[in-house]
């Protein structure tokens, strides 16, 4: 089997990749020609293009299967497998080899795009002509990635020279369970934005009447956004749990690359409602979805071309030129079709008041785009500085913390206020009525924090934390008050209990109230982040029985022990954790030495203190850093990171909210009360 695979897999993989390119090219060219041709002939030709698109998926899928099989059969004749796997690599990581390196991750990207295209082409009967246009756009993007795979970053390239007995192994940093799911989630997000973009461009080219393309892509966009959100947070959690520095976001260009399309994608999710409800912002939405697609590609260009330094592994490679030209061609294509058809994108309504849902969406979009610009600017500035003054500068966390945080706080304020505003116009009296209690709640939290010792005048970071706490509270109270107000209305009309009415309220408009749940989750995430200025850490050489104090906790070193397996040898410390006299847990921070790559790796242990402080929970984060070269004593570093567990809780709330947005609405209940009552102004300003 091994001998068979070593002969056949590279050839099979290479052949199906080439076949996929031919099929993809046919799907694009024949599809485009069929649309140009029109009529019965065009219809027949378009059908062959659709089937070629489906066959492309089959071919790319086979290529991915061939690469994964090569990893499982240790086929080191394939250079990619040699560089990213080894015989003793555990099974799940051999599967993850598919996206652990440059060539494999591009194949994975192509596979996901082909899968999205496959689903889209199967569902073509929803609107055959619009789907045909979208299918052509997706085929064009697919052809680019398949050209890249066939001619610039071939995953089945043969290793030159003698066949090695074992591979170099997977990067130890990637040997962590989350790395098996983080990249697929992130890529599902990146690639997924191609679908709404394809529909948008298709609708623009064919001057599609109405907003049907938005209705068709609504779920695609939500799902894609959900995947990207999960991917970004999983990446942050991976950095937190693996890198051992006690942080979760380092403003590295690769992290920034994932954040940029997320920001514009989030703006699109909001502004698209303006187009659905009021027929406004059509041009803006078109540009926004294009920008989201384009930024996903730009991020890939930045991080894989080597043009911007990054700690991530993809940095130096020769595929940058391909991405550069793809970016130029896609921008030119979009601009061409936009200029040709922009008259089709006129607004149907005008804005009636500054205090309205519409204007809040406008400002929300502006802030999202500014946040995206700030991240893009910070990522590019080292290169710009090098071009202008000849020397590179670093743009690290202090820049982003000072520039991006104020924008984020403004966004948080809008997140609180926006839902309270009605479409068209809102009276100041209504705004004051709905806003007063949440605002007082936010203020109370601010005062409480100051009483507890937060001194915003001592450090700007404390000031930001205080503001973030107040605004996050405001957002949460606004969401709760919206549910209660709407629930009361339904309860009055139907006689249901308040909780039952709130549930019914959500079920009647899952998208709106699911969106509020997402807002609530964002506020919870913000609460998790605002603990950062209060992080503490200590470091000490610890022998048996040595103690180290950190906040209210005492760490006592019980012992050290070692182990060995085929993949790595390891040593870990056994640390007992006490609060007062009571032992609350034992932690086992670990240090590994991976055999294939001879690379060391620390595995921190994290204990969230839910049992000790439910609301003001902290992470007790212990790292075994290794031994002091001089004394031979083990070094333990401990961090106490307040509120961090809320970040991951917030993500769960956000994802729950996103899922609830996807559930279809139920029909409104018929009220059984007299007509006079029905006509009363029953709902808050937000409605």
């Amino acid at each position, binding site marked *: 089997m091994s001998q068979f695979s070593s002969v056949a897999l590279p050839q099979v993989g290479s052949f199906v990749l080439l076949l996929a390119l031919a099929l993809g090219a046919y799907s694009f060219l024949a599809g485009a020609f069929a649309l140009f041709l029109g009529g019965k002939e065009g219809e027949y030709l378009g059908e062959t293009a659709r089937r070629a698109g489906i066959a492309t998926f089959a071919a790319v899928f086979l290529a991915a299967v061939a690469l994964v099989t090569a990893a499982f059969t240790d086929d080191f004749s394939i250079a990619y497998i040699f560089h990213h796997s080894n015989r003793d690599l555990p099974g799940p990581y051999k599967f993850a080899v598919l996206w652990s390196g440059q060539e494999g991750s591009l194949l994975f990207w192509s596979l996901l795009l082909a899968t999205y295209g496959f689903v889209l082409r199967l569902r073509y009967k929803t609107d055959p002509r619009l789907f045909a246009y979208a299918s052509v756009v997706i085929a064009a993007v697919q052809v680019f990635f398949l050209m890249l795979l066939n001619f610039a970053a071939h995953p089945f390239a043969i290793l030159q020279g003698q066949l090695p007995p074992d591979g170099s192994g997977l990067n130890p940093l990637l040997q962590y369970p989350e790395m098996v799911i983080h990249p697929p989630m992130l890529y599902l997000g990146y690639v997924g934005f191609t679908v709404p973009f394809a529909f948008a461009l298709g609708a623009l080219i064919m001057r599609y009447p109405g907003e049907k393309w938005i209705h068709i892509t609504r779920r695609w966009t939500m799902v894609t956004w959900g995947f990207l959100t999960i991917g970004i947070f999983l990446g942050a959690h991976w950095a937190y749990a693996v*890198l*051992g*520095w*006690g*942080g979760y976001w*380092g403003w*590295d260009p690769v992290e920034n690359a994932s954040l940029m399309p997320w920001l514009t994608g989030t703006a699109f999710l909001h502004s698209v409602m303006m187009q659905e409800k009021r027929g406004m912002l059509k041009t803006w939405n078109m540009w926004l979805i294009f920008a989201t697609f384009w930024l996903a590609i730009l991020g890939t260009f930045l991080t894989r071309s080597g043009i911007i330094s*990054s*700690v991530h592994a993809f940095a130096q490679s020769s595929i940058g030129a391909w991405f550069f030209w793809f970016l130029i061609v896609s921008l030119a294509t979009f601009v061409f079709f936009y200029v040709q058809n922009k008259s089709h994108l006129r607004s149907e309504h*005008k*804005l009636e*008041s*500054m205090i309205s849902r519409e*204007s809040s969406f*406008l*400002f929300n979009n*502006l802030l999202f*785009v*500014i946040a995206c*610009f*700030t991240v893009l600017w*910070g990522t590019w*500035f080292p290169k710009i*500085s090098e071009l202008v003054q000849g*020397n*590179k*500068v*670093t*743009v*690290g*966390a*202090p*820049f982003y913390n*000072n*520039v*991006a945080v104020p*924008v984020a706080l403004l966004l948080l304020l809008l997140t609180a206020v926006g839902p309270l505003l*009605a*479409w*068209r116009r809102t009276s100041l009296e209504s705004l004051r009525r709905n806003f007063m209690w949440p605002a007082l709640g936010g203020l109370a939290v601010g005062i409480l924090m100051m009483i507890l010792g937060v001194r*915003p*005048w*001592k450090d*700007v970071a404390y*000031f930001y934390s205080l503001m973030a706490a107040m605004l996050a509270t405001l957002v949460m109270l606004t969401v709760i008050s919206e549910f209660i107000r*709407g629930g009361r*209305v339904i309860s009055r009309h139907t006689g249901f209990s308040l909780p039952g009415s709130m549930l019914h*309220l959500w079920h*009647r*408009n899952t998208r*709106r109230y699911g969106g509020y749940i997402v807002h609530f989750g964002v506020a919870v995430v913000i609460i998790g982040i605002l603990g950062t200025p209060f992080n503490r850490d200590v470091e000490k050489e610890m022998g048996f029985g040595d103690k180290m104090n950190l906040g209210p906790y005492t760490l006592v070193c019980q012992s050290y022990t070692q182990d060995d397996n085929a993949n790595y040898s390891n040593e870990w410390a056994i640390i007992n954790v006490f609060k007062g006299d009571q032992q609350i847990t034992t932690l086992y921070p670990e*240090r590994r030495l991976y055999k294939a790559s001879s690379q*060391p790796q*620390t595995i921190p242990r994290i204990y969230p203190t839910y049992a000790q402080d439910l609301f003001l929970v902290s992470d007790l984060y212990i*790292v075994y*850093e*290794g031994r002091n070269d001089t004394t031979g004593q083990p070094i333990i*570093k401990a961090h106490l990171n307040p509120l961090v567990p809320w970040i991951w809780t917030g993500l769960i709330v956000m994802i729950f909210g996103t899922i609830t947005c996807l559930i279809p609405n139920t029909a409104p209940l018929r009220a059984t009360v007299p007509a006079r009552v029905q006509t009363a102004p029953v*709902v808050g300003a937000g*409605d």
Partner: protein
Amino acid sequence: MRLSSRPKLKPAAQLALIGVALFTFLGVGDEDARFKDIGHHLMCVCSCGQVLLECNHVGCQYSDRMRNELAAALDRGDNDDLTIQSFIQKYGMTVVAAPSTKGFGRVAWIMPFAVLLAGMGTLVWIVRSWRMRPAPALADGIRPVKGPELERFREQADKETDL
């Protein structure tokens, strides 16, 4: 009496005063705070991409040495500028974690806020110009609607009010 006869400050002015008072106290700190502050404005040069005080790599060749150098500079009584300059001379411009607020580096800081202000201004202008647009003229007063047209309006109202 004289005080009470003065006109009351507007809420916005009161807020501004509180803001000024808050920021007046910014930057007050002791030696430890200075170490933390400057240490968070410098990068570790081991290529980890992390701020000096957050580099935690096992066997890092630079972070301990750099931290000791920082502590020594503060012990000598060097001011913040001098300390950072000595690091720049030794490790190059990239040792500073954020662009300078002087020279071309200032552009990095100004640009996002300039774009934000320009964006806000443009948005306000767009919103105002939209509001100035003349409303569609009605023929002779309000025309009563009924039948399918009324249904269409009801649907639109449902769509726009959500509930």
